[in-house]
């Protein structure tokens, strides 16, 4: 107990809260920017059992925000690296390694042994899956998510409080909202939001303070401002009795797509029409030899340059703008055969590019 003396001596925390932490079992879903500060603090503060779910390996582009990883950890599985470092940090904690992604097949079983879940994932599929599994099992979960310089924190399904679906009923489609890889994130942001999640987890486990249940905390890093939005539980969201058949992000139903490598095979056999909707600057940096550049911003005025009598393939950097372009083209040419190159230039191997 000596190592926890400085928090035990807080009159509003005390030995009782410390004992609650030490008997608590917490599952952290996602071992990335949010998961790392959450795990480090819950481990340091004496949470008895910490489970970590993630199948990713460390990559160089993780290092600016996932601050427990070192250069030598690149390519190694995240869960294994973290488990080793967390055991060094606090040998009394039981660290449980789950080197898998959370799926609808394993979610119920993975979550079952834990008292509380912390959603530190980086995609909507996992977030809605965590919500539904926690609602079914009657477990609270601490939510945190990022967008650029902004973050959101709340505690859902806590003491019959509102759920994620009470705030955002419907899961976004794949082309609506970009993730960190596409949109970018400032290194410190997940550190701030993850630490706030760890604080909420400690409060929810011990009953100390006021938990952010029914309250969405919005953080803006550019202005360093916090804002709280209050919201209510919607009864229909508690009626979930089983997981949905799929948590795959629905693609907009009317956009057909082709995998980049399949497209490259097609190109070898026939001449195809490919429109690259990135900016002129991006196009100059690299492009596919057959591509014609019509930036998204100029598309409406340059539709005449496209032959809608034959198939139109559309590409951008990551697959977001190409879908927007296809929607625009659909409006003026509802019968055109428009095909999206899924994932965009990011998925095209370097040898196929022209610089």
């Amino acid at each position, binding site marked *: 107990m000596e190592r926890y003396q400085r928090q035990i001596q807080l009159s509003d925390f005390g030995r009782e809260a410390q004992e609650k932490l030490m008997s608590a079992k917490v599952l952290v879903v*996602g071992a*990335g*920017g*949010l*998961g790392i500060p959450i795990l480090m603090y819950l481990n340091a503060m004496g949470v008895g059992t910490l489970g970590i779910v993630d199948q990713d390996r460390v990559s160089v582009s993780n290092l600016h925000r996932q601050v427990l990883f070192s250069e030598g950890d690149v390519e190694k599985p995240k869960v294994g690296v973290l488990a080793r470092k967390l055991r060094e940090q606090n040998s009394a904690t039981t660290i449980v390694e789950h080197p898998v992604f959370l799926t609808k097949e394993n979610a119920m079983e993975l979550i079952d042994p834990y008292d509380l879940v912390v959603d*530190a*994932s*980086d*995609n*909507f599929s996992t*977030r809605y899956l965590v919500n539904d599994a926690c609602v079914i099992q009657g477990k609270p979960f601490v939510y*945190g*998510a*990022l*967008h*650029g310089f*902004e*973050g*959101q924190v709340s505690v859902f399904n806590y003491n019959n409080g509102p759920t994620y679906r009470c*705030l*955002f*009923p*419907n*899961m*976004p*489609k794949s*082309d*609506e*909202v*970009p*993730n*960190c890889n596409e*949109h970018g*994130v400032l290194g410190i942001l*997940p550190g701030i939001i993850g630490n706030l999640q760890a604080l909420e987890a400690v409060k929810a486990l011990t009953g100390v303070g006021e938990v952010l249940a029914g309250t*969405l905390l*919005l953080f*803006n890093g550019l202005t360093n401002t916090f*804002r*709280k*939005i*209050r*919201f*209510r539980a919607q009864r229909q969201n508690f009626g979930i009795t089983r997981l949905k058949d799929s948590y795959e992000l629905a693609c907009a139903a009317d956009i057909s797509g082709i995998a980049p490598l399949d497209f490259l095979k097609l190109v070898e056999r026939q001449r195809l029409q490919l429109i690259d909707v990135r900016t002129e600057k991006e196009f100059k940096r690299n492009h596919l030899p057959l591509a014609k550049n019509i930036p998204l911003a100029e598309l409406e005025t340059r539709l005449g340059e496209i032959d809608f009598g034959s198939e139109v393939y559309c590409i951008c950097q990551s697959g977001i703008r190409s879908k*927007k372009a296809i*929607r625009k083209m659909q409006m003026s040419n509802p019968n055109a055969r428009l095909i999206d190159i899924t994932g965009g230039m990011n998925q095209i191997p370097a040898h196929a590019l022209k610089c």
Partner: protein
Amino acid sequence: MEVLLFGIAKDIVGKPSFRFEGEDAPPSSVSELKKRMKAAFPELERLSSLAVAVNSEYAEDGQSLKQGDEIALIPPVSGG
């Protein structure tokens, strides 16, 4: 009437807030607000979930709005 914008809504509109002013009479309900914002910025139409808060309180479509209300448009964000 000022509308604060978060997440992808801020990116779509291109600035952190939007103001109904001048000859542009402010919308009288949350549903009218959504309709007019979507007409001005068609990409907002595609968001499956878009929470609206009025004076820091989650608001349903039917809620009426008055001059001086502070409004926030909050889409879900996914990064981690």
